[in-house]
């Protein structure tokens, strides 16, 4: 922990210089910290997950989508009833929310938006690496990223030897892997070569034959890996289906089903990480929020500001961290969406700083091109 603090005091480039001098053993003897990102594709509705309480305008504009019995967080905000694990953790200072936040993208396209939420950039498709991958690389943490999905998410690209995991139907003989590896030696394809490297190095425990449809087992396996002191330090989950243009629903319905899945993953991680949960941060990531007003199909349209759901023992306290912009017409973005008053990349940058033991200033420059992202470590996390 000390070294994190010193990083802050020393700052930027000196840190980079000094970090080389830290004897490896001092890092190894520290408790491993886990950063878990859950990607919510389609545009998560922050106002459904963490609704503002008693706003008459919201009630009027969302007649068919209003939640009757929200879980209470504080005098201003409630929580969707399907997010009950967050409510339980809230009472132990292990859940918190950032509200009215988003990446600096206002274009309302899923695919441009998802590209930017993963690259952290300003122009879609320009960057080929993810902010998390770059953060790992800048922190000299190689081979410690784990994706719980079939493809390697863009978010994790940019650092070599990430693993991914999705239970497969059967084993593959090690000998075959070695043979294919040999044949690729002379090939120019670096991506496949480095992926084959990862395959050869990965523990046998990751090759388990089981039912890949069962998300519970996936989260369970991820917890097992993360708990291992020498295992991955970063995990990425992928959920889609948040694009509820129709039949979004309130307490039940399409958006509620998706939130229930988030809840399930966090619950399994919490129950199975054991003590490691205290050294863990779980954060959600989405491309945008949704319109205030319900649309023709009792759903909502693509919007702007959303919320970040957070859980884990590295949180400072239970809070809804926000600079609330209000929901009056003139306070909305383009008169229709919840505004974003916090660049969500500041939250992710600060979270990486905590989990990777790096100065946030340093990461901001290395990962986000020096963009103006305030340091939120003291406000949000345990330093």
């Amino acid at each position: 922990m000390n070294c994190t603090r010193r990083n802050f005091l020393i700052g930027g480039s000196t840190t980079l210089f000094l970090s080389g001098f830290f004897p490896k053993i001092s890092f190894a003897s520290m408790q491993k910290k886990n950063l878990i990102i859950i990607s919510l594709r389609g545009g998560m509705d922050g106002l459904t997950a963490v609704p503002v309480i008693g706003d008459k305008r919201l009630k009027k504009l969302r007649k068919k989508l209003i939640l009757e019995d929200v879980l209470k967080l504080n005098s201003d905000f409630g929580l969707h009833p399907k997010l009950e694990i967050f409510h339980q953790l809230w009472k132990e200072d292990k859940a918190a929310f950032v509200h009215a936040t988003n990446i600096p993208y206002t274009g309302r396209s899923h695919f441009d938006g998802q590209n930017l939420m993963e690259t952290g950039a300003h122009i879609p498709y320009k960057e080929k690496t993810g902010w998390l991958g770059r953060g790992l690389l800048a922190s000299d943490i190689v081979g410690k990223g784990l994706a719980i999905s079939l493809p390697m998410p863009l978010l994790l690209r940019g650092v070599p030897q990430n693993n991914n995991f999705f239970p497969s139907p059967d084993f593959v003989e090690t000998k075959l892997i070695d043979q294919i590896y040999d044949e690729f030696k002379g090939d120019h394809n670096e991506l496949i070569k480095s992926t084959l490297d990862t395959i050869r190095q990965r523990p046998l425990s990751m090759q388990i034959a089981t039912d890949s449809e069962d998300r519970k087992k996936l989260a369970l396996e991820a917890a097992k890996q993360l708990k291992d002191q020498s295992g991955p330090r970063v995990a990425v989950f992928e959920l889609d289906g948040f694009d509820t243009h129709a039949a979004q629903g309130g307490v039940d319905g399409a958006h509620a089903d998706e939130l229930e899945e988030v809840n399930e993953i966090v619950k399994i991680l919490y129950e199975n990480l054991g003590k490691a949960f205290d050294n863990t941060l779980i954060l959600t990531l989405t491309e945008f929020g949704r319109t205030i007003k319900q649309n023709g199909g009792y759903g909502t349209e693509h919007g702007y500001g959303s919320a970040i759901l957070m859980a884990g023992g590295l949180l400072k306290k239970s809070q809804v961290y926000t600079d609330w912009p209000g929901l009056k017409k003139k306070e909305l973005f383009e008169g229709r969406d919840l505004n974003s008053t916090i660049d969500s990349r500041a939250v992710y940058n600060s979270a990486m700083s905590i989990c990777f033991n790096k100065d946030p200033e340093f990461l901001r420059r290395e990962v986000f091109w020096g963009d103006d992202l305030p340091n939120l470590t003291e406000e949000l996390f345990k330093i």
Partner: protein
Amino acid sequence: MSLNFYRRVAFGLSPQDKLPQEPLSWALNQLNSVPDFLWKGSIPTEKELRKKYGEWVYGDREVLRKKFKNDKNAYRQAKDELRIKTGERYFELNEHAIRHYQTKYGAQPVFERFWLFWGNHFAISEKDFLAEFSTGPYQREVIRPNMVKTFEDMVQAVTTSWCMIHHLDNSESVGPNSKRGVESRDTINENHARELLELHTVSPSAGYTQEDVIQLAYIMTGWSHKWSRKTLETGDVWFDQEKHQKGDKIVLGKKYKNDAKRELAKVIHDLATHPICIKFVSTKLCRHFISDEPTEEMINPVIEAWNKSNGNLIEIHKAVITQAFKYNDTSHKFHPPEIWLMQLSRMFDLDIPLSAEKMNYAFKSKPTGRQGQLSWILREIGNSPYRAKQPNGWSDFEVDWVSPELLLRRFWFASVELPILIKSQNRSHGFILRCLKNNFEDHENMASLIHQFRFGTSDKDLGRQYGIICNLPGVLKV
């Protein structure tokens, strides 16, 4: 020109295929007409399958849920019976068989590759029961016949198809000043309008604004399914004037006069012939056939052919193939898992899909494991074609298909599942050598890698041979 051209633009050569004398004209000649489906089993129409879709949702939502509302177990059992009766678990398997039969045996495999391309460009992603009942017939009846017409014709057909309208919620869209909008205070749903711009035609590089999306959504209001108490959302698509936004609309700076159902065709005409649309789609075509990052030199002749022919897809396809031929030996393309599987199936004459007789279904019990085998394989290698996660379809970039787990799935398929699919008469070492010679310049080198396993004919022995052969650098990519 190397033999990999037959995999670049098609699925390689089967043991029965003759080596073409003129590879380029062999490929170009396949694009003039729409080949019939070869599948000998049942090929139900889109309308028939939509009727089944209706029976399924009506039966579940309106009958069973009410009847068994207090008995969860009885409900589950009745629902499973309804799945069987309506073919809810069957039709997608049959669609995969029709599709893979065509790519394995078709005499115009190059045409089939374009069929896969367009089906993915105008993708239907996983939503409701579309994959179970509707995406397959949409590919057959909406995408396929339009491949010898113009791009604009295809956009018109896709945009007003039941499948796309349901997929992107356009039935839910109501013009706020329309008769219905005034009565119910309902409003537009932007989903379909946004994807028509972003994915199907001009792409975000056209610089449209949120107001353009809204205005296009206004134009599209009224295009919806006919709803009835018995068929619910599965009625035919029609133009419902009562939902249509009145007044003129402006999209990308052009005014469209208040003209009811005729507005849509006009705006589609302008979008589908927009220079940025032409560039965007030409680039995607070159990306699919030539390289992840096609250069201007690769793309420009396709754009020229597009402009010269006014968007005639036959001419556009020919230009793409001509470019693929030109760059065959100097560019690399890593193929997604389904195309790789189709190539292995054709080159090695694998025993998939199941024969039409065995795919026959009596709607009396669950489909058998064998009937579900191909679909299961597709899912496990990560590329179940009618279940893209999002409306932008499956990625055409190598980086999205290379991960430890996705590569391991290919190793698994080739070494564990594929041997079971080698026909009994093809289990000799001589067979694999012949197939390699048909399809690869460096077949001798490949043969030497499996020489040590030449005497074995068990599944395990074959797994050792095919496991490595199918995952060599020159097989995973062309």
